[in-house]
């Protein structure tokens, strides 16, 4: 199993550009998450999905959109990039939210720089 994969690894965007961060998992996990991590800060939840076709906002959703058409894929879309979106983005997945089975497994991250 490849686990959780993310592309690209690094990207520079100009203000106002748009892009999609890709995330895929091959563990047949129902739950998928997008986090951002700013320097010196913990991870903050952007969006999450509890299954194909179902998504919901996390703590910091403004400026982002997601979709979940398949169990495997959970892309994150930035429509109008802003410098405040400069961050490292992590995708994660988990099998269940049953207590004891809720460990989230993380992808390698995408480092995004908006200039």
């Amino acid at each position, binding site marked *: 199993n490849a686990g959780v994969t993310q592309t690209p690894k690094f990207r520079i965007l100009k203000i106002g550009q748009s892009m999609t961060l890709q995330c895929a998992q091959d563990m047949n996990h129902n739950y998928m998450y997008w986090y951002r991590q700013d320097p010196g*800060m*913990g991870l903050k939840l952007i969006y*999450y999905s509890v299954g194909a076709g179902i998504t919901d906002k996390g703590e910091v959703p403004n400026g982002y959109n997601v979709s979940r058409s398949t169990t495997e894929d959970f892309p994150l879309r930035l429509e109008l990039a802003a410098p405040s979106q400069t961050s490292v983005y992590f995708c994660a997945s988990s099998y269940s939210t049953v207590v*004891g089975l*809720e*460990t*989230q497994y993380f992808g*390698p991250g995408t480092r995004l720089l908006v200039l």
Partner: protein
Amino acid sequence: EDKVVQSPLSLVVHEGDTVTLNCSYEVTNFRSLLWYKQEKKAPTFLFMLTSSGIEKKSGRLSSILDKKELFSILNITATQTGDSAIYLCAVVNGGSQGNLIFGKGTKLSVKP
């Protein structure tokens, strides 16, 4: 507001030292607490703790949870330079989505 607080924020030790990292939390509906190690890339899972007083152990690392006092500690004995990393504590809050609330992390540097 739900929060997870880790201390210290950074720590420098020498190889062979023992370190204790702290994590305290205030959440409305606690389910479990997780420890992750983050080196250059993705956080990697270390432990999940759901019950008070039961120590989880993996090699030189161990962790325990106190649900009455709302904190957990992560111990690393006989530290090695490879233990240098950011250690993240996260709490799973109640609800169907299994959201993780992260602390800011403790940056551990182990000097030769």
